[in-house]
């Protein structure tokens, strides 16, 4: 039985998780102060992600505004137990930022926003206690531990917004190899982060 077959423990909600969920409930009731609270908590992370992906201050502002407005309007759609509010919110930021840069690339096929939530939103929050103490340094260390080609594939997808086919074209790598690099790279990161957190 591989580790993937093992049921992973659900993450116990932290006080911040509880506060986030309470804020989201107030947002779904139309309370602006709750939106302000959530913004104050995640503005830096949200803007940092948006700026890293778009490399454009104005576009990053639009992305963050769009994401928080999306959360404001769709707070009632958030499903408890399907990831923390932080994960949900930052996934929206990531999704919007990728969408924004793909729109600037005329050859890109745009994602259908209505088709579904960003990938991470469809996943249960199974990161468990491992994620509770993650910081940038430990994640960076896990990324550095990957092979160069695995790291390149993950970064081009997550921060560059490239599809697997675009990564294959850009790096001159067979598509199947790109798929493997992304999957195995993420698995290696996970193992590294799990080990690092124990």
């Amino acid at each position, binding site marked *: 039985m591989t580790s993937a077959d093992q049921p992973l423990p659900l993450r116990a909600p932290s006080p911040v998780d509880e506060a986030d969920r309470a804020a989201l409930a107030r947002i779904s009731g139309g309370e602006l*102060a709750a939106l302000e609270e959530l913004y104050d908590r995640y503005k830096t992370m949200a803007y*940092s992600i948006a700026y890293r992906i778009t490399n454009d201050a104005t576009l990053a502002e639009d992305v963050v505004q769009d994401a928080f407005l999306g959360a404001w309007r769709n707070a009632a759609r958030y499903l408890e137990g399907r990831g923390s509010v932080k994960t949900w919110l930052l*996934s929206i930021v990531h999704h919007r930022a990728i969408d924004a840069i793909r729109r600037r690339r005329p050859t890109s096929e745009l994602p259908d926003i209505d088709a579904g939530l960003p990938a991470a939103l469809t996943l249960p929050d199974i990161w468990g206690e491992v994620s509770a103490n993650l910081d940038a340094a430990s994640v960076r260390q896990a990324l550095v531990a990957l092979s160069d080609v695995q790291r390149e594939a*993950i970064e081009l997808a997550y921060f560059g917004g490239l599809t697997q086919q675009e990564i294959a074209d850009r790096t001159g790598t067979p598509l199947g190899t790109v798929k493997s690099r992304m999957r195995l790279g993420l698995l290696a990161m996970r193992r590294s982060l799990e080990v690092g957190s124990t």
Partner: protein
Amino acid sequence: MSGPDAMRNLTCDEVRELAGAYVLGALDPSEAAAVRLHLTGHPDGHPEIAEVGAVIPALAELAPVVEPPDGLKVRILAAAAADLAARGGAAETPAAAEAPVAPVAFPAPAEREARRARTTAATWVLRIAAVLAIALLGGWNLLLQNDLGAARQYEQNVTAVLDAASRPGSLTAVLAADGGTGSGLAAVDAEGDVALAMRDLAPTSGTAVYEAWVIAGDGVPVPLGSFSVGADGTAFFEASGLPSAEGIVLALTLEPGPGATTPTMPIISAGVAAAPG
């Protein structure tokens, strides 16, 4: 898998192979749809996808820290306040929340275009009815409070706003309060002149003033001018030089003194300008 064949039914092995690209958002739309379709038949969601997907939130930690500009918070809260006002102050109901509506930037061009499309002649009639209802209700509330002077003042102010609203090319906005009190009506004519009638505002004291703001397509709040409010809680305010465009947001903040260049939170009241179709 890529291209036209992407929507065919995938095997479990193919989905496992695509797990990394799927959670990274690196599939094209048809491929991602095929994976989602496959997952609908797997209540466990394929453990392999959950396993690699759990790393995705951690990747966000890799972005170098960059602080957002101060004005962004104001933009977002103003847009949310305007959205709330456009909904008539009502919170989103669960039924409405389940509708397949994607979040859209406000005041983004697409949103303004959508609002324009939604504003039909019928909704214009409703808007006028709403304006009159609000005006009458506001006056009635003031009468209930035995504040006849305030009721008359508010009626005069609303009449002036409706006058402006009746000019060709004018836009109107219903300003709603966020939690507290302070609501009213505004009209922006084709020349960019605005008339604003407010009621139920907390009286100002000392150097404190209410500052009116307009937020156009660039999302930057521009001060229009300030006014003070007496004990009756009503106010009438006029300014010029606004962009006469649907979707602009009119907002009020309470400032420690005149001349504010950046709004002080919270937004007291806000509304979106709209026109007949």
